[in-house]
């Protein structure tokens, strides 16, 4: 029972709680928040898994996770705010098209 295993379990438990929030809702924003939180915890879990298995050179993966998490969240929020993925986040210049 190393410290890495303990940490991995702590992360897994909090992932489970975040998943419960994603399933329970009640608003869509809660679900987005929960999915985003799951992504952040996944990043940590990958880092810890690497050290747990003695091969910590796969941290590029964790970077990809945090990147995709960010893009996913921005896309979801844009969909929610504007109902389309087309225009810019804060300008309305796509009206000119």
């Amino acid at each position: 029972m190393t410290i890495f295993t303990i940490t991995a379990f702590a992360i897994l438990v909090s992932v489970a709680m975040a998943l419960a929030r994603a399933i329970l809702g009640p608003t869509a924003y809660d679900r987005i928040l929960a999915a985003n939180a799951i992504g952040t915890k996944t990043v940590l879990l990958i880092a810890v898994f690497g050290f747990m298995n003695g091969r910590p050179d796969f941290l590029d993966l964790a970077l990809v996770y945090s990147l995709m998490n960010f893009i996913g969240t921005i896309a979801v929020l844009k969909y929610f705010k504007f109902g389309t993925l087309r225009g810019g986040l804060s300008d309305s210049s796509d009206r000119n098209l």
Partner: protein
Amino acid sequence: MEEFTDIFLMLLLVAGSLAVLYVRNLFVATMLLSAVSFLMALLFVTLDAVDVAFTEAAVGAGISTVLYLGTLALVGSNERPTAKLSVIPLLLSLSIGGALVYATFEMPTIGSPDTPVQTSNVTKRFVEVSPIEIGIPNMVTSVLASYRGFDTFGETTVVFTAAIGVLLILSQKHIRRREDDEEDSTPRPAVSVEKSHDQVGSPHDLIPHVVSKILIPFIFLFAFYVQFHGDFGPGGGFQAGVIMAAGFILYSLIFGLHITKQILPLRVVELFLAFGVLLYGGVGIVSMIKGGNFLDYNVLSADPIAGQHIGILLVELGVGITVTAAMLAIFYGFAGRAQGRGKDVN
């Protein structure tokens, strides 16, 4: 101890999938699917498949979420409730599942070293000989680009074809089947568009703007790192292509599709789409001209190992370019489609 983390993850996976099945709102189902995809990628890491986890994270959690959202923005996110419990599908899937579970008892134990998968000669060749024969530490890359070069060429062509198909389907003008169908029966997205108009140009969007501006160059740099470091660590053309496309998609989400199209017009994307496949095929042709078989990299240089390195580098580059262009073309198709329904956009 480690297997308990696996089991925990798999149980979370089942819970997430059941939730995907039961929620009525398609938007919520998409969010849950993205969470399920994250968990699945995590499971791949614990099962030693780091390259696959890389791809699944980039594709499943990133790109496909964006694609589903692009679709939902066009078709609406409410699912019509089904009145009755579907008995026949339930029975059918239960019986198929039962038969498969019965069959699993004949399957070899997970992780045992004497299964046919592990003892086959092909596996021995890949694991023991390939680092010497190809000279690349990442066996997945050498199998992908060299031993199974034909197969990967086929897959690249499939991605190419799918992107062409999406462009053909979605670039057509909007046609209604019935002229009398005046009012749009499509459900609107969750937030009405008029509402968002009041907030357009609000200074509160400054923070995502600035942060994305800082991040996007590093995303491209990271994509190049993944592309060219794929020989030594997890990564390669497929992953790098998806990350590169994700950088452009982020740019487009923040600054608008029309600005992205000014930087990288669809015409250029189409050129790149074809160029990647041609580069891949061209390597094969050159190796034939040099006297080898199609995609036999040994003849590309005087030293077979150097030849393999050149071949794998070029082939992965071709894959990366095609995948980038394909993902971008698909995104352009979906995100630009709203033009067909002008009254809904503004």
